[in-house]
């Protein structure tokens, strides 16, 4: 990879931002599993594996599965954030595989947030 200049930095930023805000047509949904040490200890890895398997089984190409650091609310780990293209992100807490399944079926696939497990919607910091 070539070393980058300040202009390249800006280009990467533009390109990446477009991907991160789920621009229309490219990606429909993004699932972020919060995987800090406490999340992993609470079982985030199992949740991650589950989503990866499901996305594979359903052959979905328009869902991004990614991980991120601790979301801060350690008492309610494992946590995930599900964001659909035209909706505010929703944070889910205290997950297990069964809950993950419902979230995948009802929110990721069918577009309806699972109120039973949701903690909040919206983003802590301004979306880019």
């Amino acid at each position: 990879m070539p070393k980058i200049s300040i202009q390249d930095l800006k280009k990467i930023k533009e390109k990446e931002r477009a991907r991160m805000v789920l621009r229309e047509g490219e990606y429909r949904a993004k699932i972020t599993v919060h995987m800090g040490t406490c999340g992993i200890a609470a079982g985030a890895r199992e949740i991650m594996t589950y989503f990866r398997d499901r996305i594979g089984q359903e052959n979905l190409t328009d869902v991004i599965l990614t991980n991120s650091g601790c979301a801060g609310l350690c008492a309610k780990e494992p946590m995930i954030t599900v964001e659909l293209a035209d909706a505010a992100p929703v944070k889910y807490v205290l997950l297990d595989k069964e809950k993950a399944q419902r979230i995948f079926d009802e929110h990721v696939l069918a577009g309806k947030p699972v109120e039973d497990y949701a903690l909040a919607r919206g983003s802590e910091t301004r979306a880019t």
Partner: protein
Amino acid sequence: MCASPYYRMQLMICAGTGCMASGSLEVKAALQKELTKRNLQDDVQIIMTGCNGFCAMGPLVVAYPDGIFYNQVKPEHAPLIVEEHVLKGRIVKELLFKEPVAKDQVPLIKDIGFFGRQRLIVLRNRGLIDAENIDEYIARDGYSALGKVLEEMTPEEVIEEVKKSGLRGRGGGGFPTGLKWEECRKYNNFPKYTICNGDEGDPGAFMDRSVMEGDPHSVLEGMAISGYAIGAHKGYIYVRAEYPLAIKRLQKAINDAREYGLLGTDILGKGFDFDIEIYPGAGAFVCGESTALMFSIEGKRGMPRIKPPRSAEAGLWNKPTNLNNVETFANIPPIILNGGDWFASIGTEGSKGTKVFALTGAVNNVGLVEVPMGTTLKELIFEIGGGIPKKRKFKAAQIGGPSGGCIPLGMEDVEIDYESLIGVGAMMGSGGVVVMDEMTCMVDTARFFTGFCVDESCGKCIPCREGLKVMYDKLTDICEGRGQEGDVEFLIELGHHINSTSHCGLGKSAANPVLSTIRYFRHEYDAHIRDKHCDALVCPNLIDFVVIEDKCKMCGLCHKNCPSNAIIWEKKTVARIDLEKCTKCRTCITNCRFHAIR
């Protein structure tokens, strides 16, 4: 519902009155026709079901085994469903149920106490970026502060901006970061070093871990900027060995940054060289002290040395060295991008910006919170932390790790900043806040912290090495029922000696937990010594282990949980404890919901 063994897939079409009225039979016919056309009638079964209860959105089709829920399906959608879903396994997005906008039942994040009151600067990227993807960090303005510094600013201007921000060290000391950098820049003795202190040792503090794991590039960027400002080309990150994930992610971040030329030689083509190496610690609390940490990097026992010379003059390998904490470095890029004045507009007179606190112990929302300096302890514990679980009462908050102090009930209105915490006998430390409820014995807590400091004392100077041990033994005596009149006065005197005659930060504050608990909870010490009673029911020798008959609700939980069968209980009788068998393990006390055992 599972698919029948003979069919690969089932399409359930709602035949309730509502859906029939909106045309589900036509949909069924169209789907059947489409399937037959593609010779799939033996693979896919069509089932008419009863009402789904969602009549407003009919006709409804649910595709199993996946349970995909299509609504407002029209006959002309049939080819699409068969082609996309049945054949290719892709979901037909247009037909998925979309939430009407108004009815959001899930609350907004800003309406939730835990999130709504936070202000994120250090944790600006938390939960938003993939820590192992440098592009995502760049997308959120990552490395643009470094770019700005290298392109537009002289090192002096960088230092000026940091000074203007009023940023103070977040590792505990609270020394102004800008002044530290300025001091280090002064010396013309090369090579210089900049070190990130990631030896987060305070029990109950994990904000540095979270930043290193969740946003490692922000630390690297802050370090590179500090390197530019003081004239260093080499940085070290000293990380606790207990944080393997942090080490892994930092290493990945360093590798990626090197590939992009954001570390290494000629960064961003601006002629500045800077590289970073991780140095994993080996488990010694005292290595959080700056001079001890530098000795540890040199491969020696991590024992603090006498200052001066200050590290800025002669630190690592006797060269000018700047050392900041993880959180401090993570504050640097936003300060550079938004300006020192912006940062200084947040917080209090003497403490600018935000502080990350690790909220733990007896509090509902255990977690990491970032709030402006000057937030009250009450807001922190009750509004953000969600209060105390199990309807218990707040007793005290311990702030600042093992060398901090306890802030009791009645003082929770204190505004948290560097000076006010010292005023009430605690300190900022690294920002660990451990909440304690009425089930916590303050004497036992003081003993615990003293025991911690005894274990972690490096042994170099006597007040800390010997004095703490004496203190610990005295506290043990009190907790085990051998306390005598005069013990408390002795502890106060010894504590002041230890604090005033030790030479490093650990020793100088090691007696704080004892002194601050005596200051606010003298009555508990007195109860232990005079009445031989521990009100919080923690110290086993000072508990009677008798059932208070009025309070006993005869539930038998104590009986069921007792590991030594020492509790005599039958239905509808008050429990009784057989003191012959009782091992004083306190299982009954923790299980009793009615505080009926004392």
